[in-house]
């Protein structure tokens, strides 16, 4: 078996030593550091990107929270405004209702006063008419011409008591 021929051993050992040591130096000094650098750079970039992403995410969340707060505030103030407007309107409505009521009451009073006045004047003119009728009637009935003042007095007595007692 050629492997067991000792004459070939020295040359194999020599070249093995040369190539192996050369390879070791190259790997140790050049190849591995280069690969390690690239791997490390990649890992660093990943970490950086990840950190940036989390920072941006937090910022976005912050903005969202601010927006929410703003919206809630706006909503609350809008509510306030509506409420005050509502109250103002209600107050004004009440005011106008009261004014109207007062006006109506005044008008009713005035109307009642006019009615009373008209009633009074109607009554007084009625008295005159009744006096005339009574004078004519007495004249006709008993042929006596009563004195106008006596007739007026009698009529107003009767009408007065009748007015008091109920409608004449």
């Amino acid at each position, binding site marked *: 078996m050629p*492997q067991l021929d000792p004459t070939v051993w020295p040359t194999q050992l020599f070249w093995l030593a040369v190539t192996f040591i050369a390879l070791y130096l190259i790997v140790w000094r050049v190849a591995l550091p280069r*690969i390690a650098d690239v791997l490390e750079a990649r890992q660093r970039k990943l970490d950086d990107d990840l950190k940036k992403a989390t920072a941006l995410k937090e910022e976005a969340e912050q903005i969202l929270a601010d927006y929410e707060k703003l919206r809630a505030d706006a909503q609350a103030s809008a509510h306030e405004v509506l409420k005050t407007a509502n109250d103002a309107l209600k107050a004004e409505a009440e005011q106008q209702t009261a004014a109207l009521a007062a006006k109506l009451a005044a008008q009713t009073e005035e109307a009642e006063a006019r009615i009373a006045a008209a009633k009074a004047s109607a009554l007084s003119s009625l008295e005159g008419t009744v006096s005339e009728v009574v004078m004519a009637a007495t004249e006709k009935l008993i042929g006596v011409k009563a004195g106008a003042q006596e007739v007026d007095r009698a009529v107003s007595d009767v009408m007065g008591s009748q007015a008091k007692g109920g409608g004449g």
Partner: protein
Amino acid sequence: MAEGGGAHSPLEQFEIKSLLTTLEPGETMGLVTFTNSSLMMVATLVLITAFLILGMRRGALVPGRMQSLAELSYEFIAGLISDTVGSEGRRYFPIVFTLFMFILFGNLLGMIPYSFTFTSHIIVTFALALIVFIGVTILAFVKHGMHFFSFFVPPGAPVAMWPLLIPIEVISYLSRPISLSVRLFANMLAGHTLLKVIAGFIGLLGVFGVLPFALVVALTGLEILIAFLQAYVFAILTCLYINDALHLH
């Protein structure tokens, strides 16, 4: 061993031939003779260097194919070391990486038809195994001093058994370089010899030569797997021995 026809022995493929000089009859090879074995070793060196350096030339953050492969080999061995030795093993990363790549590429280059497998020589594998063994033993001495010898006392054994157990443990420890080298050498030797023998039948059987041919194709695939596997086993055992030297003593 069976012959494939003619006077060729399947072991002829392992002969060391001088490439640049012709030997006189009776003259033996010198120290610096450039042989087929030397050629394959230099080719291995060149290929590994090219693979690593050219692969990392771009150094892009998103790697291309070659760069991915180079980084893969780096991370594979780095993972191996951190799994077996832990973080202190970091300093031994270059030697383990060199061993792994050298043996791997050596094995794989031998699969090329008409090339030579330099790992099929016991002296080469023994030298590599000795590097590991002596390195690890020196490491253990440097780290633990004379306490190193407590390694050979199995835990929990009664003192009466020591005269029996300690020589056995010593023999077991000393057998490490032997097993490391013989394993690699025997796998390569057996694989290539088998291939040669089966291939020898292709011509003999005429039409039925397709069967040995198919077998050779299948065996080649298997041998490529074994090339990877043996490099891996060598590397992981080296890591385990380093771990032994650093801890557990």
